[in-house]
């Protein structure tokens, strides 16, 4: 059941898969955004012991505002639960829960503690109105072994200001006390190897009624009383649970930032406590950011447009370039090339500061108005992302001057955004080679190993990027552990496939110091709409080899198509320069794997990706991913991989699936930044459906400069 979470920073200088600067940063960002201002936020309803909107142990039909991301830790008696909940759409929410039950007699218990993971979904059928209550239907623990399995339909109505009444019907666990009826027979056997939707059980078997009242005394204090239909049968027979009463009583205190702290008296004999913190990508950040003001647009001398005398004057040209370089540098932008004509200037510019790319374009435009001769009427800005010209933004300088103080959408309408292929100025010789390095401590984490549910290491990471030319980069990252308890993972999960990932414990234990990656990468433009990448070397923690990728992405298209093929050789466990070959304890890893991918921006904040191909272990299949994306760069999503690996060969969990959250550093710190951190929680680390990890896959680096994406936060152009 153990697994190491994959936490991955993406961006200019990112590390490798297991690296968890990302997680540390992600967790920090979460706390940052959650504990900070709660402005613009609707009141968030009370959360229960399951980390869902609810009373004490029972759910209510209350729904937090769209985008609310909530982290709950609760404990009562022998039960401890950590839950991450996300309001996916205004009506749909999803939760992931990791629970531990102490004093629980079970073959899988470790030191008497039984650990369990569960996923929930809730959907609001009816919104509360003058006469109608809010009605929510919920599936609890709907994937997995079903320890917490239950379904419910619940209604909540505010009777008087502050007083809410809730009533519902529960199946499964929630129908275990004094059933009032029954629908068919609820099966008990587990489907596959667990980990697939328990659809055969939903709303079947006995059902019971539950309900309760909540009274909101003021903004800060709420009291709850409920009748629970959960009999805690399993906890009573296998554990030390003493069910004394179905009535539970609770009190919650809400801090100004929305954080909830609750105390409970539950099931007659238990005392419980809970803390829930919230954040919301839509409200967490200082609106518009906190960075320095841009320089204003400089108006031209009215006669200047006709003065072309400078075009023959090398000093004027050199000084224009120097001024532009300096002006851009002050805003964290790097001028890599300038083509200066009498009436048109094209710049290639590298953005290493602004995570919202429209802002980088806007700041470049401003600098150009201050540095370039008056006769230059057409500005073409070509941002370069990892050496590849991402797009060409063409503006008339007159429009820039006229629209500086108008709504940003007006300049967007005038801008021409096209493919930069064949339009990109040559990089100037001074810009390359370019060397960047960093040395920083980071925290590496591993969760959900029952032997040690939380493991963490403090390590040092030395990273360097050496750009030999504008599109050829030598890149490396090395780590050295300082201390912690991450080593000592001894699990060797049974697997019916070559052990492409399940030997992670050996890599962690022996890799100190470790070369995370050491690669030479080439990024290119094959033709209009076509981008390429070839990466050679030690690609990731476990594999060396060659990775080649091609991406088709028209500048204004919502659709992109990609293909990737990889040749891999397994690295030595110590992660130095050695290769151990592809023979593992459970089979031979194929030399080649690869995928074709389709990416699509559905609009309304949803993005989908489909990858079809051959995975590391040689299994064939597809990964479907759906993400809710926010204009400021936050994403919350889920993925599932289905391959031809039989469930028995895959092992516990049946197939690979997980949820992932990506938090832009800039949004969390209110400082422009192109990095973001990715936290992935997958049900289990297994060998089926595993993909190679390669830095700088093309799509994510390019789409931010393309039309559907950049237009979402175009308001930052003038910021």
């Amino acid at each position: 059941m153990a697994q190491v979470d994959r936490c991955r920073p993406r961006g200019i200088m990112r590390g490798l898969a297991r690296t968890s600067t990302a997680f540390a940063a992600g967790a920090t960002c979460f706390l940052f955004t959650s504990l900070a201002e709660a402005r613009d936020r609707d009141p968030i309803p009370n959360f229960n012991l399951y980390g869902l909107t609810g009373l004490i142990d029972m759910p209510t039909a209350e729904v937090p505002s769209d985008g609310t991301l909530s982290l709950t830790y609760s404990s009562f008696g022998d039960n401890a639960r950590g839950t991450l909940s996300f309001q996916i759409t205004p009506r749909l929410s999803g939760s992931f829960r990791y629970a531990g039950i102490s004093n629980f007699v079970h073959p899988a218990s470790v030191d008497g503690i039984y650990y369990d993971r569960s996923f929930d979904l809730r959907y609001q059928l009816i919104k509360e109105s003058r006469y109608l209550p809010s009605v929510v239907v919920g599936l609890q623990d709907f994937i997995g072994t079903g320890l917490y399995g239950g379904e419910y339909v619940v209604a909540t109505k505010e009777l008087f200001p502050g007083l809410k009444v809730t009533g519902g019907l529960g199946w499964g666990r929630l129908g275990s006390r004094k059933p009032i009826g029954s629908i068919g027979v609820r099966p008990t056997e587990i489907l596959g190897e667990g980990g697939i939707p328990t659809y055969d059980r939903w709303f079947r078997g006995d059902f019971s009624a539950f309900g309760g009242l909540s009274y909101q005394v003021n903004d800060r204090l709420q009291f709850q009383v409920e009748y629970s239909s959960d009999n805690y049968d399993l906890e009573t027979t296998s554990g030390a649970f003493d069910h004394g009463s179905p009535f539970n009583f609770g009190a919650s205190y809400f801090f100004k930032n929305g954080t909830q702290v609750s105390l409970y008296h539950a099931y007659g004999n238990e005392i419980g406590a809970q803390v829930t913190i919230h954040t919301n990508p839509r409200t967490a950040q200082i609106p518009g950011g906190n960075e320095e003001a841009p320089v204003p647009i400089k108006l031209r001398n009215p006669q200047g447009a006709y003065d072309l005398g400078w075009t023959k004057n090398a000093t004027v040209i050199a000084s224009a370039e120097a001024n532009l370089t300096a002006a851009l540098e002050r805003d964290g932008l790097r001028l890599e090339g300038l083509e200066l004509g009498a009436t048109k200037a094209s710049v290639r510019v590298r953005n290493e500061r602004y995570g919202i790319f429209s802002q980088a374009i806007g700041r470049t435009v401003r600098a150009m108005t201050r540095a370039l001769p008056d006769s230059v009427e057409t500005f073409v800005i070509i941002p370069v992302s990892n050496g590849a010209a991402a797009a060409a933004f063409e503006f008339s300088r007159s429009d820039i001057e006229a629209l500086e103080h108008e709504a940003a959408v007006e300049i967007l309408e005038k801008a021409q955004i096209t493919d930069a292929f064949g339009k990109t100025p040559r990089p100037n010789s001074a810009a390359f080679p370019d060397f960047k390095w960093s040395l920083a401590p980071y925290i590496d984490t591993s969760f959900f190993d029952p032997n040690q549910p939380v493991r963490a290491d403090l390590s040092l990471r030395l990273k360097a990027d050496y750009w030999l030319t504008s599109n050829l980069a030598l890149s490396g990252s090395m780590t050295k552990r300082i201390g912690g308890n991450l080593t000592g993972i001894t699990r060797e999960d049974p697997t019916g496939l070559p052990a492409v990932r399940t030997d992670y414990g050996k890599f962690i234990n022996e890799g100190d110091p470790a070369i995370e990656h050491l690669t030479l990468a080439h990024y290119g433009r094959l033709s209009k709409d076509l981008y390429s990448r070839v990466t050679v070397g030690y690609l990731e923690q476990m594999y060396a080899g060659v990775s080649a990728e091609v991406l088709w992405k028209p500048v204004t298209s919502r659709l992109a198509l990609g293909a990737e093929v990889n040749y891999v050789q397994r690295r030595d466990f110590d992660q130095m320069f050695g290769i151990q070959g592809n023979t593992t304890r459970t089979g031979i890893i194929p030399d080649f794997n690869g995928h074709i991918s389709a990416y699509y921006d559905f609009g309304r904040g949803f993005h989908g990706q489909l990858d079809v191909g051959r995975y590391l272990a040689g299994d064939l299949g597809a990964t479907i991913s759906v993400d809710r994306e926010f204009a400021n760069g936050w994403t919350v999503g889920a993925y599932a991989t289905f391959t031809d690996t039989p469930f028995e060969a895959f092992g516990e969990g049946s197939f690979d699936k997980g949820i992932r959250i990506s938090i832009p550093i800039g949004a969390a710190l209110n400082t422009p930044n192109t990095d973001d951190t990715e936290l992935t929680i997958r049900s289990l680390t297994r060998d089926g459906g595993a993909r190679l990890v390669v830095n700088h896959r093309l799509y994510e680096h390019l789409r931010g400069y393309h039309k559907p994406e950049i237009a979402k936060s175009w308001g930052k152009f003038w910021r």
Partner: protein
Amino acid sequence: MIQRLARPALLVMLAGSLGLAGCGNTANDMGTAISIAIKSNVAQRRGTESKITQDQVVRTLSRNPNPIALIDLETRKSQSLMAQIQNNRGYRTYATPQRQTVTVRGGMITASRGLGGDLMSSNVKSLLPVVQSRSRGIADYEMRFLNSEDKTYTLHYTCAVHEGAPVQVVSGLINESGKAMQAICTGDGPSFTNTYVVAPDGEILSTRQWMGPFNKYIAFQQLRR
């Protein structure tokens, strides 16, 4: 001096304790971002309330020949002197030494940058002439902001402009008679009342305006036109 906003100290310390600050020459590492946050946070705590003294006004006026103004962020009890750095066809942009700017048209604030929660732009084509005419009237008014998601939203208002009493404006190098004007605005967002003191030539010598849900009221007073 207007301090940049930052996260509460506890959070910055937490980030620091996670050990993400490092060294290197990359422009974009987490360490740099956090150290900026720490610095601005420390600065914020040192000088939460800043009042501009008469000495500072005199010094600035004598050293800088450009138009000068005083800005007062009421919610932060923070003042700063600003010098005009650009005039784009009547939109005049003033900057603080900390690289925060305010743009005015005819003395009416139309935008800000670097304050956090900035007014990105506004449509004063209807309101400005009414206020400048120093007579009563009804006018439309539009304010555009970015939300936390970095998406633009617009607040539309209708303002009832009223005449007030004559005022003698004595501030910095300005000593002129003006007329107080009041705009009571209702619309998409919270209702607010802006006040202006308008010179006979229509220039707004001092203004107290609602600048959005984040900054609320900001006063801007010209010290030299």
